[in-house]
């Protein structure tokens, strides 16, 4: 029986879909059968990030409305054994699916897959409620910005209320250089404020833009820093102890100075 994990954030555009696609790739690379579910109905994106947009026949709404069987809607990624996508509908809206229907779909998927990753839409409305409906646990994506961390805090509260076990945090788009200069919150700052466990840090990486342009997630190749981070997170999801690279530690002369003065 597989596990259902929702990837959510509250705030839009912080990297949920990018994270879902790359973690799917990284988990499949570990030999774990993984299904990605695009729960962002009406704003389908996961298919293009994965480069699978031309292969869609049926979607999530077709499944819940009984137009097709679940198996028929799944798209297998030919590049990578064990990775599948259940696409969202592009023409419907969030109310086309109920939380109960969503739970039924994820229940069926977990019979067949080791991991089911659900890409949540932004916000806290129906789309979010659908996305968390069948989840055993949650990963929260936040960028080192006030609005993103604030929204993450709200989401943590809502997940608690929904009795989904403590979520873990992915800090995305970290720029270590800016942190060192004191111009960006550090991972520790964010973890401290949100008081949840960290599962990974993904740096700001131009390769994300390049690989997304091509529809070939960064984690597919071994030459990007972000890809490295996703592989580490995938192993932590599986339960491995993977040490955290010290990405935002103060370095160099000023870093040491700051540390001496206790401001690190």
């Amino acid at each position, binding site marked *: 029986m597989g596990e259902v994990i929702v990837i959510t954030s509250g705030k839009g555009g912080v990297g949920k879909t990018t994270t879902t696609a790359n973690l799917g790739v990284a988990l499949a690379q570990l030999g774990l059968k993984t299904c990605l579910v695009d729960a962002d109905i009406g704003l389908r994106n996961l298919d293009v990030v994965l480069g699978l947009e031309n292969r869609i026949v049926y979607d999530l709404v077709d499944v819940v409305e009984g137009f097709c069987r679940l198996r028929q809607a799944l798209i297998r990624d030919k590049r990578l054994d064990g990775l599948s996508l259940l696409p969202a509908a592009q023409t419907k809206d969030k109310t086309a699916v109920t939380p109960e229907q969503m739970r039924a779909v994820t229940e069926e998927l977990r019979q067949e897959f080791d991991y089911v990753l659900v890409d949540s839409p932004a916000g806290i409305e129906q789309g979010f409620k659908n996305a968390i409906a069948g989840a055993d646990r949650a990963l929260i994506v936040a960028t080192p*910005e*006030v609005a993103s*961390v*604030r929204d993450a*805090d*709200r989401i943590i*509260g809502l997940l608690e209320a929904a009795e989904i076990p403590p979520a873990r945090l992915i800090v995305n788009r970290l720029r270590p250089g800016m*942190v060192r*200069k*004191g*111009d*960006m*919150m*550090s991972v520790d*700052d964010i973890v401290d*404020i949100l008081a949840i466990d960290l599962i990974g840090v993904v740096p700001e990486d131009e390769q994300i833009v390049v690989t997304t342009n091509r529809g070939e997630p960064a984690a597919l190749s071994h030459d990007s820093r972000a890809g490295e981070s996703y592989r580490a997170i995938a192993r932590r999801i599986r339960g491995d102890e993977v040490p955290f690279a010290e990405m935002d530690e103060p370095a160099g002369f000023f870093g040491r100075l700051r540390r001496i003065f206790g*401001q690190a």
Partner: protein
Amino acid sequence: MLNLFGRNQSRDVAKNRLRNVLAHDRADTSPEFMEHLRNDVMRIVSEYVEVGGQGVDLQLQSVEDHVALVANIPVKQLRRRGRQGNN
């Protein structure tokens, strides 16, 4: 926390603003939170003073760059001995 030009580092400003806004958010989104806090304060304070009027009034207020928990507790009279003195 000041840089060479005497300005607060934006990282620290961000942290501080977040702490403040989250204090209010958390209190607003969970009415029971303030209610429980009020009840607990009432319980402890009552061991020392006889609380009068409407009882304990608790509020989160933004004061300059931080959030303060402000309590207004009307006192009818002090008890002769506080909790420690009673045992």
